[in-house]
């Protein structure tokens, strides 16, 4: 009854509705910030739950390899074809290997690996922690003198930050290999020339800046999964909502931070 009345009032009063949603947004940003700090402190200070950390390394890192690898090989192959066609318009087909390598290491490797992780891992984390919240397992953990931030959140954040750069390195390699495959099998590039062009052209910073991005994206993916799962309310529906929010917010934050980081790197390189 009361909530129906409240909804009615807010429908009649757009200013109040605006104020309420602004407050909710501020509260949400504050909540995520506090959560991130608590999670980071838990991840970086003892006691550590090494068994949990190992479990998350395997769940987040190892089991994401197939999906990240497949994404990378197809993207690399398609990118090679597109750049070959585009480059042909001004007789620059021969720089295709360099452009593919640059595109993969600086941008597509980290972003695609992160997006796959957002779909796979962020959702799984939100669903697992959300279900634990709904069935009082998180309350139970606290009554067993164990801090859920140390046991659940910390290991996932660490695993996200450490595993996504490794996955990205794998994606970079497989992505370039996808380009090479198309170039040598479909487009009559010489294998040796392709590889030499790629290696001679690429600079360490191209790869490293991508890996730094990946570490940030890994933190975002794990954080969004944990935050939305931890704050899930209202049973099965709440868990479903938490999963959706985790994936959507991860994806948006990945793109936004990708732009900010790229801007920062571009200025720093000058």
């Amino acid at each position, binding site marked *: 009854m009361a909530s129906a009345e409240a909804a009615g009032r807010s429908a009649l009063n757009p200013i109040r509705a605006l104020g309420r949603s602004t407050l909710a947004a501020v509260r949400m940003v504050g909540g995520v910030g506090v959560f991130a700090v608590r999670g980071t402190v838990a991840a970086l200070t003892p006691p550590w739950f090494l068994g949990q950390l190992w479990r998350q390394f395997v769940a987040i890192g190892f089991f994401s390899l197939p999906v990240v690898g497949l994404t990378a090989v197809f993207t690399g192959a398609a990118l090679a074809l597109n750049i070959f066609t585009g480059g042909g318009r001004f007789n620059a087909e021969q720089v295709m290997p360099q452009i593919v390598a640059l595109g993969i290491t600086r941008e597509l490797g980290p972003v695609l690996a992160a997006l796959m992780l957002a779909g796979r891992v962020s959702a799984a984390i939100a669903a697992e922690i959300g279900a*634990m919240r709904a069935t*009082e397992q998180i*309350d139970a953990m*606290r*009554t*067993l003198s164990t801090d859920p931030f140390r046991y659940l959140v910390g290991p996932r954040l660490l695993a996200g930050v450490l595993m996504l750069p490794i996955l990205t390195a794998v994606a970079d390699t497989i992505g370039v290999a996808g380009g090479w495959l198309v170039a040598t099998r479909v487009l009559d590039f010489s294998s040796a020339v392709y590889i030499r062009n790629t290696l001679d052209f690429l600079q360490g910073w191209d790869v490293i800046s991508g890996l730094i991005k990946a570490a940030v994206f890994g933190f975002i993916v794990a954080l969004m999964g944990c935050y939305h799962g931890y704050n899930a309310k209202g049973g099965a529906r709440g868990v479903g909502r938490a999963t959706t929010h985790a994936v959507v917010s991860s994806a948006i934050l990945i793109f936004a931070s990708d732009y900010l980081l790229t801007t920062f790197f571009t200025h720093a390189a000058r």
Partner: protein
Amino acid sequence: MIEATPKLAWKGVTKRFGDRAVLDGLDLSVAPGKSLVIIGGSGQGKSVTIKTALGLLRPEAGQIELDGQNIVGLSEGQRRKLFSRIGVLFQGAALFDSLTIWENVAFRLINADGVPRKEARDRAIEALEQVRLAPAVADRFPSELSGGMQKRAGLARAVVARPEILFFDEPTTGLDPITAAAINQLISDQVRRLGSTAVSITHDLASAQTIGDEIAMLHDGKIIWRGPAAELRTTDNPYVCQFVEGRAEGPISQAV
């Protein structure tokens, strides 16, 4: 009247959700070694009462005292230390479904007390035997157990570190009458064996009378009746009578 310091006491505790005061100046206490059962209808604040004592919810007003010390607003670290003296059996047992039964029972020992796994496992199996679960159950996962067995495992987890205070949140909800009776018996055996103070909430009167020395009835965020378990069915308090007899009409008007 001279009384010993109660083990646990709520003093003028108020907890609001939005405009609604779920607990409205709650005063309640339980003496050391006694078992108190709080009864009352759904939504009358029974769960909230326990959650404020556990620090899972923070009251807006009032104090909660453990051995005479206020425990509202403790830091995380102090709270963690306090929890080593407390055992809780949650309504749905709240077993960790990614861990085996023995790892669940030994969770506190392994993760908070630093007991080696081998020894923790032995103690977990011992606790499982106390609640009449066979050692073979130890390596199964919670989802492979019936509701009654999950409750037993939850009870084993609550008592494994020999807590001073035990909380039971609706221990028999969702169980058939025979399993419920067995759980009630186990609870009262364990409380007696450990000499712990116990606080339970339930709307199951048979359960209340088996596990409680004293019963308190919560209505509209206040205690409206309290007495020895035996007096539950003889009191002439109109609220208690209506609840015990299960009538729809009376002083308690439910917004169904």
